[in-house]
């Protein structure tokens, strides 16, 4: 399919209407003028979009997973929308209606996520997945097929980016010195979503929700290693020279669903806070800028990590759950959830926490959060737990660095372990 679109002289794109009976505006039906064109006194008001391309982005054509690949891989695209005709090749954009300023190729708005924009590798690779997971897929089993043609184009680039089950990895070309190898496991969901069991939990394709990526991806280092299945054995990620989805036989495909991860493994306490509990927390001792602290922390499944010297004070953070944990197994509404600590970025001390569910032979991920980002986002508080009566001690201050010392303190003495992530 990919070759057919990339080999075409031009691709006509029906970016209007909900089906193939709608026709192409300007041929089968008259084009509409924008909603308003009103003159008041000497002034003329014309409805416009933020970008000329917004009409394409908001079309049903743009809402479908399969069309992402068709538009991305084409070389020359002629979009038929209800109000205009837009031509976008890999260099230039033309439009037969101009309202406001001319649309430029590097300012295509949201649509640029569906086009081969050049840039640092992490951004295009991860924005492809972000855009793709936003789109509607009729059949779950198509999740990988609908994107694989686009991901293939990345493996042919000068700094090749490969992928396994849609998760991209490659060398960071802009780094100084030896180029670190990064793998885009740093995604999260805004809210819990349904699992696609046919795909691994560590891939955004393994879930039905929209994937968001952190700016930085985890980097392979002495404290974080990833092995992947290729042909007949596990090999280090750095040894991979091709896209791994090309493994055709069923056994290899099955084995490739598991990553062999070596990382610091530990556990965190997870506790559910209801809206009522959050409202009733005593915050009287907290003063911010001389004013009482009135913000009510968000209810939900919080991760509760010990902090401070004596272990009496806890930090509570609302992580990003892919799938909420089952608290019915716990005592007093609290359970221990296994987690892997993954360093993000190159020399940065940012640590991501991947929360896991134990499946006996392997783990699956159920949530993700970045320590620095989560601390800074304000969805956290420090509290004392005195026989169930919660007192907010103070707000957790923004953290500049998060290193071994803090990890050991907050994550119950994690140990390096190797495990399968499926």
């Amino acid at each position: 399919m990919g070759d057919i679109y990339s080999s075409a002289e031009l691709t006509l794109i029906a970016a209007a209407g909900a089906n193939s009976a709608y026709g192409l505006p300007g041929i089968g039906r008259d084009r509409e003028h924008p909603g308003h064109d009103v003159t008041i006194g000497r002034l003329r008001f014309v409805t416009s979009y933020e970008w000329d391309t917004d009409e394409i982005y908001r079309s049903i054509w743009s809402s479908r997973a399969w069309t992402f690949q068709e538009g991305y891989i084409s070389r020359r695209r002629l979009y038929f929308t209800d109000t205009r005709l837009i031509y976008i090749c890999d260099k230039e954009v033309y439009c037969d209606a101009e309202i406001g300023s001319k649309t430029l190729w590097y300012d295509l708005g949201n649509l640029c996520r569906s086009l081969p924009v050049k840039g640092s590798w992490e951004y295009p690779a991860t924005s492809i997945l972000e855009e793709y997971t936003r789109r509607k897929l009729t059949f779950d089993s198509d999740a990988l097929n609908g994107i694989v043609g686009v991901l293939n184009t990345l493996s042919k680039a000068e700094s090749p980016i490969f992928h396994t089950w849609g998760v991209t990895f490659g060398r960071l070309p802009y780094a100084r010195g030896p180029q670190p190898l990064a793998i885009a496991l740093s995604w999260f969901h805004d809210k819990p979503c349904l699992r696609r069991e046919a795909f691994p939990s560590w891939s955004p394709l393994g879930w039905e929700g929209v994937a968001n990526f952190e700016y930085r991806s985890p980097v392979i280092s002495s404290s974080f290693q990833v092995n992947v299945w290729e042909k007949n054995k596990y090999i280090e990620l750095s040894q991979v020279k091709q896209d791994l989805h090309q493994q055709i036989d069923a056994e290899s495909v099955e084995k490739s669903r598991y990553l062999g991860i070596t990382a610091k493994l530990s556990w965190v306490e997870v506790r559910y806070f209801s809206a009522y509990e959050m409202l009733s927390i005593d915050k009287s001792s907290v003063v911010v800028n001389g004013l009482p602290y009135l913000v009510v922390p968000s209810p939900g499944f919080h991760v509760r990590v010990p902090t401070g010297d004596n272990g009496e004070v806890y930090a509570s953070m609302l992580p990003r759950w892919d799938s909420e944990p089952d608290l019915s197994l716990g005592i007093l509404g609290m359970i221990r959830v296994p987690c892997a600590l993954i360093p993000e970025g190159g020399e940065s001390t940012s640590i991501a926490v991947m929360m896991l569910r134990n499946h006996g032979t392997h783990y699956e991920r159920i949530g993700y959060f970045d320590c620095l980002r989560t601390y800074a986002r304000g969805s956290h508080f420090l509290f004392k737990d005195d026989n169930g009566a919660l007192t907010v001690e103070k707000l957790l201050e923004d953290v500049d660095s998060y290193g071994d010392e803090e990890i050991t303190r907050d994550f119950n003495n994690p140990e390096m372990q190797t495990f399968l992530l499926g």
Partner: protein
Amino acid sequence: MGNETERLSIDDETHTCERCSLINFESLEKTEPAIRAYLLVEVQDLSQPLTDRHCPTCQILQTAIDVHRSRYPSARVYWYRTSGSMLGLLGWITFEYSMGGASYLLKPDLMVSDAMARWPHPKTQLASRRVDFGQAKTWIDACKESHPGCTARCPRVLESLRVIDCVTRSVISAPEDCVYIALSYVWGKSKTCDAPNSSAVLDQVPLSIDNSIEATLMLGYRYLWVDKYVRWSGAVFDRLRLTWYLVYRPSERCRQAQPDKPDG
């Protein structure tokens, strides 16, 4: 409704509502662009229409509000005066909405230009009702001349590719070195979507495909590739070493297996 009826005058008091008649467009127009002037309209509840539909000012504000009201319950509407002369563009209407204590601006939904001085405004060019293929051809030609990177990515001939010959409106094996146009579209719940026999002449096709055939010809090309019309020629793709699942939308397979189910 034609444009003439929409171009209402602000002087027509019977059409301008009481609130909007207080808006001093004249003064805004005369404001020195160097000063960042704006017109502010507070809209507390975006779920309610601004006022009656006869007021043109309310209508244009409402148009902008409609875009965002599902996402933002309340907002302030600003009309920013453009600083500097952007070819007669006087500014834009924008929204400021608040969420979680922070304020956000939404970029323009309504462009405001100086109607009388430059009419039609050089930068406010609406598309004609019908596509001008001559113009589209100039874009394609310009791209071919100056963008070597935009040339078809796959140099090899796609052997035994099946395409629609737009002149005879029949599905044929693509000739050698076939230059073809591809179509990307949403099938949806269209009724006339049965794939024809491989050699059939296409007399009844969905409107979008019919229009694409016309567009192909008008752009000076002859062959059009539409996924629905090549699905029976699976064997040819083996030669391209493309796996089955890459060639076909699997949803198409499902539909073949369940012919009675409505299109999804």
